[in-house]
């Protein structure tokens, strides 16, 4: 299973088609947080909140197909997102974005680690570190050491488990219970979920679009997949992935409806426990566990592999004059082990609320959305103020975060990066004109 070249380690032996491309993207984007965030948004913003969450994600992936088309048109051959950014940015801006990319990807890995920790706590009576240890060892071996070939081999099974769970479990429940009792139960215990025009629904949708677009457009794994899919199939693969991805949050939401219709709940974790008590049939319980495990491992594996590839190809290689492929692959093995150990420790000793973590990263993605669009759609190398504006916007949004609501800080972050870019563009335009006139 050892890759012969570093390119094979990063991109696999051949260019992939639409089917495998969609599977690969689903394996990345159906995450541990998809299982929890969609029901969370449904609980907070009503049934349409859950649907809105799913649609936002789907739209973001469909939109990424336009970006992907443009990127492959300008830069047909590349390994990582870093390769593309190098062609469009000056060194200073390039390094700023590389560092942000590494931090956001570590954050994603940490979130998946937290989701794995929740799953381990929920499933096993053994100490948390035992379950987590096996989870991390598995992920490092199949993704860090196996390379893309093994990731795709596992992805096929992982997606099959996820599909089996989202098709069979809700179907089984609703056939067993019927829709009328569920509706009556929701109306009795959670009538707020059936309210269509919740006052903060639209705030949620707009903030979600900002964060969702930023997250999808600035994702290392998606960019890496972009370079390995056959050129003519890129737009359709991403669009179809978006449409197919839509069904997962919807289906997970329906699962959670099944849990809460018989009574109240304290938090999202209590819903998870409620689900375990509801799924009495061993087959469905195992299927649900496999689905959750597949969602978390596939995302963790894909992100770990993408991060390691970026670090080796774009951060280490420029400083080493003569590195052959085998040395690079060994470096990738070492890095994946190090990153795995780092995330394992962080998950074990630091346990913030999962939802807090998600909103914590919202500011970053919202600030990155417009800069990444400017980078992709500008014809020339973009000035350093574009990545700097993202950095300043992120900093500013975290400063005002204690004084504003979650949504407000997300909007502020997005708006400040746009404002900074517009102001800097006008200033540089005036400067250029002035120089021309002087000459």
């Amino acid at each position: 299973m050892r890759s012969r070249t570093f390119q094979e380690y990063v991109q696999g032996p051949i260019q992939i088609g639409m089917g495998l491309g969609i599977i690969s993207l689903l394996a990345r984007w159906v995450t541990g947080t998809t299982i929890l965030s969609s029901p969370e948004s449904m609980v907070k913003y009503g049934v349409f909140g859950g649907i809105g969450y799913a649609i936002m994600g789907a739209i973001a992936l469909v939109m990424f197909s336009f970006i992907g088309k443009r990127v492959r048109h300008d830069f047909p051959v590349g390994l990582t997102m870093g390769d593309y950014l190098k062609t469009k940015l000056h060194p200073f801006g390039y390094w700023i974005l590389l560092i942000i990319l590494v931090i956001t990807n570590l954050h994603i890995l940490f979130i998946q680690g937290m989701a794995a920790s929740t799953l381990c706590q929920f499933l096993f009576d053994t100490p948390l570190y035992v379950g987590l240890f096996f989870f991390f060892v598995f992920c490092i071996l199949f993704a860090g050491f196996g390379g893309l070939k093994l990731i795709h081999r596992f992805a096929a099974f992982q997606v099959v488990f996820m599909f089996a769970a989202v098709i069979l479990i809700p179907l089984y429940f609703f056939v067993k219970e019927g829709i009328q009792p569920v509706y009556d139960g929701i109306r009795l215990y959670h009538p707020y979920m059936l309210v269509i025009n919740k006052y903060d629904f639209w705030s949620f949708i707009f903030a979600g679009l900002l964060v969702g677009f930023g997250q999808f457009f600035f994702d290392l794994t998606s960019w890496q997949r972009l370079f390995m899919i056959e050129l003519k199939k890129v737009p359709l693969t991403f669009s179809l992935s978006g449409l197919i991805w839509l069904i997962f949050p919807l289906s997970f939401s329906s699962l959670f409806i099944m849990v809460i219709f018989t009574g109240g709940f304290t938090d999202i974790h209590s819903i998870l426990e409620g689900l375990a008590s509801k799924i009495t049939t061993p087959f469905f319980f195992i299927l649900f566990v496999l689905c959750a495990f597949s969602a978390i491992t596939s995302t963790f594996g894909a992100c770990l592999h993408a991060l390691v590839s970026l670090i080796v190809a774009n951060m280490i290689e420029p400083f080493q004059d003569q590195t052959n492929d085998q040395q690079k692959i060994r470096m990738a093995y070492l890095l994946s082990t190090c990153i795995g150990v780092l995330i394992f420790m962080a998950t074990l000793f630091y346990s913030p609320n999962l939802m807090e973590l998600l909103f914590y990263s919202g500011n970053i993605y919202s600030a990155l959305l417009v800069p990444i669009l400017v980078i992709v759609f500008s014809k020339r190398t973009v000035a350093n103020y574009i990545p700097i504006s993202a950095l300043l916007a992120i900093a500013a949004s975290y400063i005002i975060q204690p004084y504003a609501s979650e949504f407000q800080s997300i909007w502020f972050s997005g708006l400040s990066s746009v404002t900074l870019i517009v102001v800097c563009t006008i200033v540089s335009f005036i400067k250029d004109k002035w120089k021309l006139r002087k000459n």
Partner: protein
Amino acid sequence: MLSFEGFTLIIMLFILAPIMGAIALLFLFIFEKRIDLLENKNKEIRLEQALQEAQYNKLNQQIQPHFLFNTLNVILGLARLNRKAELIRALEAFSQFLKFKYKASEPLIPLAQEIQYTQHYLDIQSLRFGDRLKIDMYCPDHLTIALVPPFILQTLVENSFKHGLEKKVGEALLHIRFRLDSETVHLEVKDNGLIGNAATAAEEGGHGLDNIQKRLYLYFSNRAQLTIASNENGTKVEVSWPLVFDTNWEEAAPE
């Protein structure tokens, strides 16, 4: 507040969407390779067509220097014989002929155009032969808009002169007949030239006839035919190809 019906619809969507998604993905997996294969096949066919077209155009180009060389010889002959008036008329006809020739770059041209083109050649030959040459050409009006690969008639007529009529003492007869028979256009070129047997004619006129045959095959495959028969009375060449009309020409044609 969401009604029960609305809630039912949403739950139906939640249940059916994953099934549809799975079917879509399965469909992609099963048919993606086949679709790719069909696309590649289509590409291959288009490439093959382009190659054939290139070959066809190459053959079209080949026939032109062949004719030009012979016509220049005719004109040279007139000059040597000091037949100044005929030489001028020949050059006029030749200039008309060239004017047409450089315009004809289409793979198929209307029969009327081909006849007109050959007529310029015949004008040149009439100058040489004078009253000795009798030409009998007939083409039904409705066939004038039928399409034909360029230089077919002209090559056959040229071969008649080159291998038959040139050596003929006395009256030189040339019959050209077009007819339509069950959606196939038949062209018959008959001369009373002196030629021993068909094999020699085919060999000697090899280059021109071979070219015609190749071009007809490229365009109409086995549906086009060329036969040649010779006896002491002369040579008869028959060519047939499927009737093809160009709609633009059809509309432009007089009633």
